[in-house]
């Protein structure tokens, strides 16, 4: 519906837009004065600034590492879309890939120049935060959901407490807490990196919401499944991993996808605690007085970037949902 509305709005403004965006636009120049005399859009801001927008303060000569990081994540994401690859092993692949991307950016190994995380930025940072959130958050969500249904009162209380507290506050406060409070709890001299603190905050936030979704899936599994698994002698973890979770997670997958998409959008919040994700990096790029007037064009580019990512994920999720409602085995 919203998409339709947006399309209608586009339609009525389309003639003006076309002349602004295409006919009178400046596509390429290294001198922002060319843009001032033109009546149209200044797309040159993107050609001129795209490196900073996409990679932030990451050293210019090492941008290929960022490109490689983006490629690894996108390729793996596409592969993961195919049901035939779904297994716990796929999760391990993601875990390894996340670590690999982290090392690739960090350097100091394999003859790569070390680059401190304070220099990271742009799309690689956005994607790494996002992937780290999901890869770290999913197992935590499953454990919280299982814990919430545990017959051990202490574990149950702990999980309920964690879930409800995190869900009771906005993400931004979780991020501030993570960035300000962790240092207080750490022993003297131990500092955790700002990026890691943000990631932990994002993981906790994602996990608390995803846990409730997973719990819904667990509740949908009939008691008979538990009993049949127990009757063939499976242990708690065998039963959980092989019988209950595969069914529960399939049921809630579309719902989980919307949390995943939200996790992607939520990466933008890290700029508030001083990390330069792709949005933050763009803001920095526009601090250049020569180009600041063309912020609109730059943000249109960022808009399209986010839209492509979120739209493809939500399309995919709708496709899963359709499969599920048609009763097909996911």
């Amino acid at each position, binding site marked *: 519906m919203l998409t339709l509305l947006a399309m209608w709005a586009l339609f009525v403004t389309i003639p003006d837009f076309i002349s602004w965006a295409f006919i009178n636009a400046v596509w390429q120049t290294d001198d922002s004065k060319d843009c001032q005399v033109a009546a149209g859009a200044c797309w040159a801001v993107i050609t001129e600034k795209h490196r900073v927008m996409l990679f932030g303060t990451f050293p210019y000569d090492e941008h290929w590492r960022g490109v490689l990081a983006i490629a690894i994540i996108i390729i793996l994401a596409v592969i993961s879309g195919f049901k035939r690859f779904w297994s716990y092993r796929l999760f391990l692949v993601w875990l390894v890939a996340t670590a690999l991307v982290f090392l690739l950016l960090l350097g100091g190994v394999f003859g790569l120049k070390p680059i401190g995380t304070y220099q990271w930025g742009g799309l690689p940072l956005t994607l790494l935060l996002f992937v780290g959130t999901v890869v770290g958050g999913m197992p935590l969500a499953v454990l919280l959901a299982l814990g919430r249904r545990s017959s051990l009162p202490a574990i149950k209380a702990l999980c309920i407490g964690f879930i409800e507290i995190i869900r009771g506050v906005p993400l931004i406060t979780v991020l501030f807490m993570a960035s300000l409070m962790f240092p207080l709890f750490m022993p003297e001299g131990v500092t955790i990196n700002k990026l890691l603190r943000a990631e932990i905050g994002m993981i906790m936030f994602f996990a608390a919401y995803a846990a409730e979704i997973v719990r819904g899936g667990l509740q949908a599994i009939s008691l008979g*499944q538990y009993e*049949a698994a127990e*009757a*063939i*002698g499976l242990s708690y973890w065998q039963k959980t991993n092989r019988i209950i979770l595969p069914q529960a997670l399939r049921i809630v997958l579309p719902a989980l996808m919307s949390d995943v998409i939200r996790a992607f959008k939520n990466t933008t919040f890290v700029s508030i605690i001083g990390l330069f994700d792709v949005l933050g990096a763009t803001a920095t790029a526009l601090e250049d007085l020569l180009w600041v007037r063309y912020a609109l064009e730059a943000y249109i580019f960022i808009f399209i970037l986010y839209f492509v990512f979120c739209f493809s994920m939500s399309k995919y999720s709708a496709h899963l949902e359709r499969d599920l409602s048609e009763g097909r085995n996911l």
Partner: protein
Amino acid sequence: MTPTAGKPTQKNAGDPIIELRDVNKWYGDFHALRDVNLTVGRGEKVVVCGPSGSGKSTMIRCINRLEVHQEGRIFVDGMEMVPDVRKIEAIRRQIGMVFQSFNLFPHLTVIDNLTLGPVLVQEIPQDAAEAQAMEMLERVKIPEQAKKYPGQLSGGQQQRVAIARALMLKPKVMLFDEPTSALDPEMIAEVLDVMIELADEGMTMIVVTHEMGFARKVADLIVFMDDGEIVEAASPGPFFANPENDRTKLFLSQIL
């Protein structure tokens, strides 16, 4: 039956494989089992019947700890049922169970339903387990369904898969909780046939059912329960010909 399938040697009740001694169970305030005593010998077939809510399911589910009894003692193949996860898992490996609603794993193919237990519990290699599973499917006469998902099978076929799954772990005892009650009439016979074959091969069986034809044919002992109690236990001849208890008489008059 294949020789590998744990064929129990025919012995009499003097060599009990299952023993319930003064078992009591409550659901909250509700007294579901009252001083239940039952001894099942190796190779014996016991049919349990009784009105709805009389505790039949509760009793057999206590035998593999799907329900926990509060008083009395339960022994399976010489092991006592105690609240210890290791012991419970060891006992469950001796027992196969077939449920009224099949409870197959819908996300796994028929063959995977069968191999899961042996592979995970007995750590048998996947290919050996698959070979064994195919044998088992032959026994229940549906080898051609191996690659299908449970949802693609008829009720009778699903229940036969469930029986095959329970047999995969080579149990010494098979428990059946109303295995044909959820089936359309035309499918009941195919499941009962498989059960009769199993009985003929010497399996120890405890079967909750209202199929009195089956009971007459295979049972060594028929147990009648009412209100959480075993009211009457006798071999089929005397049980049907002259039941002693009035409640049994009433029940039989309603069901026959």
